[in-house]
């Protein structure tokens, strides 16, 4: 790398720190996919399945309603070709698939059993390829790019890589059992995902454009120590995506770096300036360990005019 390239690379990196001016990723303005989590039947916390094990993948969807979104979908899981970049694609025929042709607000999920070790061969990962739509009719193409939903306003194509168990990849989903969410210093408990804003019991905030502080204390058990890479052993780094259906978080991502001892992240959230009626708002906190492990927390509030 020559000096010009070196300096220009760093300058370019600093230049992209300005956020996304075209669309705010932390604001849910249409049907969105926010994450997927693998759960192994025999050991639900583990994120890396072994040959012959049964498992399921559940997806987290959201839309601006603040309620569980109604969507149609198709998904399939297969042994992935070992391409390091680009959109994942299947090496073999799908192991399992499922389709929801009529709109449903049930969380999309796909159960499957991994083939035996001989069939997996030198495969290192599976991939789940999925399409989610807010209406229309699903048309599954030869690959993810060509699958679509004529008649839908929003089409979301998605993939989720599942890394197979090995000495180098053993991994659990981030453990959020001890995680504590606070809103302006008060513990923020999980409520019903189908919040009724007509009810007096619903937690609420006014639509006054005021900034509130959300903090997420992840708890000591949230991350593991990574298997050694180039003789270096360090804890996982964690990426937290924070999103809301109303108002706006200050940033799309927070992070916990390997050297961080403080496992609490804080991010301001600004309430919407005005609303015509009491409206449910959903908040999503998706924690990733960059090794295929994913967990999430959701919270709901009513925002009053």
């Amino acid at each position, binding site marked *: *790398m020559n000096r010009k390239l070196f300096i220009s*690379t760093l300058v370019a*990196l600093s230049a992209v*720190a300005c956020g996304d001016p*075209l669309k705010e990723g932390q604001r849910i303005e249409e049907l969105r996919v926010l994450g997927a989590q693998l759960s192994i039947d025999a050991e639900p916390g583990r994120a890396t399945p072994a040959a012959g094990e049964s498992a399921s993948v559940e997806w987290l969807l959201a839309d601006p309603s603040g309620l569980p979104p109604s969507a149609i979908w198709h998904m399939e899981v297969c042994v992935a070709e070992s391409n390091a970049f*680009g*959109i994942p694609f299947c090496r073999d025929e799908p192991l399992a698939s499922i389709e929801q042709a009529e709109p449903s607000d049930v969380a999309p999920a796909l159960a499957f059993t991994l083939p035996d070790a001989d069939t997996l061969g030198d495969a290192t990962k599976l991939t789940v390829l999925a399409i989610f739509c807010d209406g229309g009719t699903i048309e599954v193409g030869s690959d993810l790019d060509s699958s679509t939903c004529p008649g839908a306003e929003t089409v979301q194509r998605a993939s989720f890589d599942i890394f197979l168990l090995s000495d180098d990849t053993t991994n659990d989903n981030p453990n959020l059992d001890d995680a504590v969410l606070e809103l302006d210093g008060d513990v923020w408990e999980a409520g019903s995902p189908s919040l009724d804003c007509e009810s007096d019991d619903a937690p609420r905030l006014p639509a006054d454009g005021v900034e509130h502080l959300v903090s997420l204390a992840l708890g000591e058990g949230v991350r593991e120590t990574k298997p050694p890479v180039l003789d270096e052993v360090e804890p996982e780094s964690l*990426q937290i995506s924070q999103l809301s259906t109303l108002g706006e978080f200050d940033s799309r991502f927070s*992070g916990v770096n390997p050297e961080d001892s403080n496992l609490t992240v804080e991010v301001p959230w600004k309430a919407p300036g005005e609303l015509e009626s009491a409206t449910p708002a959903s908040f999503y906190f998706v924690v990733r360990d*960059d090794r295929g492990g994913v967990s999430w927390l959701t919270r709901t509030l009513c925002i009053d005019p």
Partner: protein
Amino acid sequence: MPEDTFDVVAAPVYYDYQGMLVHRFNQNHKLKLQAYGSYDTLKLVFSDPNEEDPALRDTVEGEIQFHKFQAQLTSQFGARVQQNIELAAGPISASATIGDLHQEFTGLDLHARAEWGIFASDQLRLDIGTDAYVQTVHGKYKGPPPPQEEGDPSVDQPLGTIDEVSLEDTLYIVRPGAYAELSYRPITNWLLLPGVRADYDYGTRAWIVDPRFSTRYGITDTTTLKGGVGMYSQPPEYYQLIDAFGNPDLEPYRALQTSLGVEQVVADGFEVGLEGFYKYLYNRVVGTAGGTPPYFINDGEGRIYGAEVSAELKTDSHFGYLAYTLSRSERQDRDDPWRLFDYDQTHNLSLVYSYDFGSGWSAGAHFRLTSGDPETPVLGGVYDANSDLYRAIYGDVNSERRPLFHQLDLRGEKNWAFEDWALTAYLEILNAYNAQNVEGTTYSFDYTKQESATGLPIFPNLGIRGEL
């Protein structure tokens, strides 16, 4: 940029140095010793992961340095033999960290060349030589695998969507070579230049022999025909041969280059030229379909063809130069359809003019007009649930093109010449008419929205320069 983007910004630290000592042993032997090097470092600490690519988080820092000692001995043996021997060697090192990604290497860099020019007669000259490039580096790498050098739009994808690879290794780049070129004038106005170059590449364990030939023929005192044909070769990049993310069985890639042209002196100080060219590339190193093992293969071709017209005006007070190239540069990767090269420019016009008013005053202008760079359309995005980012769905590679690029730069200066030094004051105006040239496209995080990014606006620049 928001004020709280970074927690820590360490100011860039850099230095350069160079020194030279020349010793003339006698009229025939001269030794030149040079030492030079540089050091650069920069560090940023992100307060939050980057919005577009959360792999850019925590610390982003880099350091690069090299130091080199160079010795050159030039000798004249009698009236007919010249000798030039050069040796340059020194340490190199670099490191870069971007969040969890890291690379570092240290090594030694060595260039050597020995060259002899033998003037057998007024009609015949022979140049022979040998050179070698040796680099040995030990390093660690943890990051994305390298993409195809060109023609792969996925290089723009966020780091977070790319699987990491890691390795620690020692690499040896050893490329010795030898060459010979004959300059022969069978008659006064005809010059023949046959030559050959042979190289060995340790990385591919390959010998390559490239014959070349060029000629110039003066039809009249004012008209010269010229032409050439030759083979050229280039070994794969060292990282393309690394087993972890490359293919150790790659071979060098080759090019056949041809040209034919004419130069015409129209009047004193005014020359025009016309040259056509054609190049055919084969054995190009390209990525495998879908980026699967062995990642790189020698399965690409290329063709470049076009013509260049040039005119140069040079008088006491006027200097003008015009060059226009009409060309097409295409590549074929594997069995894919032919596509445009990433930097193909159908039209490339450059016009330079300056006028010397006398008394140290001068003014000039530089106008450029070129085709916009080819661009690959983005048709949508696929959400990657592992990174919470979207990967672009691309259309045909380089099937669209940015708008025409045009820019006028103006410059005026006053020069004061003193006995031992000179002082120049200048005013230059870059992009004088504030052209809004499109130099890129940015996309929303999910690739549903896009906008064009334009280059520098009008940019006046006032300066003073002193020269010893």
